[in-house]
């Protein structure tokens, strides 16, 4: 059962990466696109065990690194951090669902800001981008809009039915 959930989670993040890189080639309202792979990572790590969540975050990041021209490991670092933050905060999200939307916004924004900062430190000139604020803010807003469309189906696919066995790993 645990393996089935992990396999579905891996399939979901691959689908997320494929959609992230293809759906938004031309569909970019106000010059930005949702950080869909990040949102799916966040949604998946709400339901997996702690260590598997971190590994899924790291692997998704590594896949994004390999599909981009950025330094290998940048996205891995960012999405591992996203997974860690989600693992730490998910009980609060469960206890108070109204925290979920601001939580998605803050995690998305912070992750993109972290990527921009690390990118600059490692010579990617991301902060030299004239639209840097827009590229951090709009994807976070789009992720909030997509939250009702993405999180519930993923919960249905890999969420727990009664109890939270994966959480204590």
């Amino acid at each position, binding site marked *: 059962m645990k393996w089935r959930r992990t396999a579905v989670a891996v399939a979901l993040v691959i689908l997320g990466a494929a959609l992230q890189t*293809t759906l938004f080639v031309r569909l970019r309202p106000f010059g930005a696109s949702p950080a869909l792979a990040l949102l799916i990572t966040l949604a998946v790590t709400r339901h997996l065990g702690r260590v598997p969540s971190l590994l899924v975050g790291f692997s998704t990041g590594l896949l994004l690194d390999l599909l981009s021209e950025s330094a290998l490991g940048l996205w891995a670092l960012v999405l591992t951090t996203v997974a860690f933050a989600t693992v730490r905060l998910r009980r609060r999200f469960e206890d108070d669902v109204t925290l979920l939307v601001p939580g998605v916004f803050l995690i998305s924004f912070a992750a993109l800001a972290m990527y921009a900062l690390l990118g600059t430190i490692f010579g990617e000139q991301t902060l030299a981008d004239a*639209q840097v604020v827009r590229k951090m803010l709009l994807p976070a807003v789009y992720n909030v809009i997509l939250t009702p469309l993405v999180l519930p189906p993923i919960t249905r696919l890999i969420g727990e039915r009664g109890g939270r066995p994966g959480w204590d790993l």
Partner: protein
Amino acid sequence: MWRPSGIDRSTATFIGLVLLSLVMVTIDLRASGEGLGGTLRDGVQTAFTPVQKAATFVTRPVVGFFEGLSDLVGIRDENRRLRLQVADLERQLAETESLQRRVEELEEILAIEPPGELDTVAARVLATGPSDFDAIRLIDKGRRDGITVDMPVIDEGGLVGRVVAVTETSARVRLITDPTMRVAVRVERTGETGILTGRGGGLLQLEMFNTQAALIEGDLLVTADGRFPAGIPVARVTEKAEAEVGFSLITRAAPEAELSRVDYVKVLVFTSDQVGAPGSEEEEEPVQPPLENGGTETTVGTGTGPGTTLSP
């Protein structure tokens, strides 16, 4: 496994993965994208291209639907603008035909070999980078179609970017809007040269070296860079230039290529080795731009001259 008391297993794993990521970044940067990182990228991109092709096939109608909706908003103004543009282009075409005849006559008189046409490979844009910070596009043609790294990519408007990585079946193109991209350009109207730098999206930054250069809104900028064939439209000046204390003139320019909606492109089968080959123009003195924007290599030249490689 030993771990300090107070640190649970997930925190230890997190610290381990962060350290592993940092090591990977360091190794990849030291290898400059080559080595194991480059091999992994090629392998994963090759394996992932069919997935991206399938996703593109499935999502294209959805994208088309939303694009259609957004197009409806400004369709009347667009129609009026296009009618004016057609009238203007018809006039320009008549002038160009007349000039072309004169050039052919002069070439015949002076026994000059006309410049040869470059081969092109038409390609479709399959995918973009995983975030808005990645100004790259993946195209569906690769090494087996004759594409190599550094080849220029254009669309019907002008320069789109250049190829930065190639697999057997696909290639990655870095757009001219990328902050690491710098292209030497010439103002078509005056012949003055400058450097266009990407700003991540939207308008590009144009830096002219001659502080006396007169730039007006609408001036067309064409390639004058050893890495690209000369004369490809790149951008159009959008703001009047302002002198920057005695060193240069800096202004903004809008890309001629429709980068936000690029779908089909052409890869020019051209490498900088072809510069100076039969059919190219007479070599001229290269322009030396000021060194800045650390780490970006820029090859500059006027006409199709060989240019100078600058390594700040």
